């Protein structure tokens, strides 16, 4: 615990600049919206620049903990910054045309997205439960609003309500968990959690459980998943693009940080079993229910639930390799899941209606590029080799097998078999069914094309040359602070 008062020095400034850039860009957009609405067509560019600038500053920031050990700058945060920044960039690219098409191209959308991004960024960097909580709430509040931002569309408002109510409910549990961790360690700093004895304190375990629940909620892990399908369906697709990817990665990282702080050596058996149970439930429920979905956004929501089950495998495996696997997995997930939503945004042109899969019939020939990338993303999500998704799963399952979690790994692969069922369903509808009408699709806008292209390239790049990323992630995991010997 620091006793002296902290000074805001250049170190702190350098560390926080990324977040400042984002927040300021958000403010700028609000101001432009209010006073220079003609500049709207530049909003996406400004946002992209902010994300890029923020990422650049993050990469340049000196490594180490600042703000009295509350904010981390390290290889890991850089990697995560790239991950969430990438997600944000894709989301913004998707938003560009989507918003123009729906007539909602306004500064608030981008501003809220950027502010939410700040929250996620804090989640990935926070070494302090309070920072984490504030980050979580910043993220949540922004996305409550983004969920309901289409006030003219009932589904959007309903999504806002549902996300808000369940989110607030979940946050309350998270907060209650934080209370007990604070109570037992006497501080909100994660480093305080590594005191001897805490690992066996029931209250600490309880607090950790509540955090698991709260962040599990953000990751949409069953049984805390129920919001996801409804919210994804009603939420504007660009926002889902972000929400379905970046916060999940940040959340698992938070869990990893907190758990390693307390347990260091390894999870206690019961706790590990609990995580395993959640993983199995999540994979199974997600995959099985996804089979029955008819709306592609709901389907992707369930797919996400299942994918988070796989991620929990890595949490159960709990080790440096597993952590690195999580990082790699999320890069893959970024490419494939964000890419899938980007494709959905490009392929569905009427936002006031649901997104039934059947509408995709024949898109393989009508919109070859978007459909192709969607198919690629789905194959990647299904874990077919030479795509990023395979690499992600490769490392996850490797971590599980190395840790001896054979049953979990087997359940995992059986589940991914089930998942192929619905991923391929979309593919065959796109490629093997005739289109339902003769309407010629409009040209794919540049921004969408860019987003899709980036995802496609990333999927292959990562699928074929995973080595560099893995080594980076492994190095980052090596410097992860709390793992015991």
């Amino acid at each position, binding site marked *: 615990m*620091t006793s002296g008062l902290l000074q805001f020095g250049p170190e702190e400034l350098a560390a926080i600049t990324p977040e400042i850039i984002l927040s300021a860009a958000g403010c700028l957009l609000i101001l432009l919206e209010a006073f220079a609405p003609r500049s709207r067509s530049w909003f996406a560019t400004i946002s992209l620049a902010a994300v890029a600038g923020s990422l650049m500053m993050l990469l340049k920031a000196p490594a180490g903990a600042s703000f009295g050990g509350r904010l981390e700058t390290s290889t890991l945060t850089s990697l995560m910054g790239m991950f969430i920044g990438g997600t944000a960039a894709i989301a913004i690219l998707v938003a560009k045309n989507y918003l123009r098409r729906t007539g909602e191209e306004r500064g608030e959308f981008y501003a809220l997205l950027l*502010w939410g991004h700040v929250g996620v960024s804090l989640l990935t960097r926070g070494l302090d439960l309070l920072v984490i909580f504030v980050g979580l709430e910043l993220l949540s509040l922004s996305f409550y609003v983004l969920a309901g*931002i289409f*006030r003219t569309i009932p589904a959007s408002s309903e999504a806002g309500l549902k996300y808000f109510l369940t989110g607030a409910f979940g946050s309350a549990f998270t907060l209650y968990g934080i209370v007990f961790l604070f109570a037992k360690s006497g501080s909100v700093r994660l480093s305080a959690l590594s005191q001897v004895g805490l690992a066996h304190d029931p209250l600490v375990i309880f607090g950790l459980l509540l955090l698991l629940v709260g962040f599990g909620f953000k990751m949409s892990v069953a049984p805390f998943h129920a919001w996801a399908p409804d919210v994804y369906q009603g939420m504007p697709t660009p926002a889902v693009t972000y929400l379905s990817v970046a916060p999940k990665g940040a959340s698992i990282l938070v869990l990893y940080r907190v758990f390693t702080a307390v347990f260091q050596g390894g999870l206690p058996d019961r706790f590990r079993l609990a995580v395993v149970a959640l993983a199995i439930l999540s994979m199974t429920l997600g995959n099985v229910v996804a089979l029955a979905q008819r709306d592609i956004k709901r389907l992707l929501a369930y797919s996400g639930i299942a994918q988070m089950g796989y991620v929990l495998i890595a949490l159960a495996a709990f080790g440096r390799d597993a952590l690195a696997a999580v990082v790699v997995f999320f890069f893959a997930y970024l490419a494939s899941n964000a890419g899938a939503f980007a494709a959905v945004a490009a392929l569905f042109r009427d936002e006031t209606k649901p997104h039934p899969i059947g509408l995709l019939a024949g898109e393989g020939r009508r919109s070859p590029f978007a459909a192709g990338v969607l198919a690629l993303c789905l194959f990647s999500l299904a874990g077919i080799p030479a795509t990023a998704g395979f690499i992600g799963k490769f490392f996850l399952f490797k971590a599980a097998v190395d840790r001896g979690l054979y049953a979990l790994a087997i359940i995992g692969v059986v589940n991914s078999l089930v998942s192929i069922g619905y991923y391929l369903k979309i593919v065959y509808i796109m490629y093997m069914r005739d289109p339902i009408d003769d309407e010629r699709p409009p040209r794919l806008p540049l921004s969408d094309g860019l987003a899709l292209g980036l995802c496609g390239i990333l999927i292959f790049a990562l699928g074929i040359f995973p080595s560099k990323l893995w080594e980076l992630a492994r190095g980052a995991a090596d410097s992860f602070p709390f793992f015991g010997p």
Partner: protein
Amino acid sequence: MAGFPIDRIVFDLATAVAVLFAGVMVVHHHPVKSVLALVVGFFALAVCYVMLWAPFIAAIQVIVYGGAILVLFLFVLMLLNVGSETRSAGSRRPVQTLLSGAALLLFAGLLLGLLRHGGSAIANGSQGPAAAEIAPLARLLYSDYLLPFEALSVLLLAALVGAFVLARREAGP
């Protein structure tokens, strides 16, 4: 501090009131009455905070919670003109109620069991009533807790803009 535990009695009374009115809030079918019940409950909690050497918190509890948040609730209720929850055909959800009840009982039991342990395990603090001073609190906020505080400002801004975006009346351009 020996003798008659006046602190404790006041505290327990205040918590009893808070819990009671929270309960009232939950069982009342009319939202306005629920809000009003909660106002009482939150005031009672403010008393508790005072007893726990946190007058500053007590103050913002009264001002922010009692004064701002609940008033906002009332305002919205009036705006929307929401009446009491009506019983419609679909409103009876016995499964939901039963499961909720059972789960709540279990949860309460587990929580109580846990907290019985929890109370005794803490090292006794050294600061005592000095914690009630507000100035050090402020210094902490602007130094040690600068980061969350800054983040909080963004959060408030986001909430502001968000609320504005959502509640705007005119349809999008």
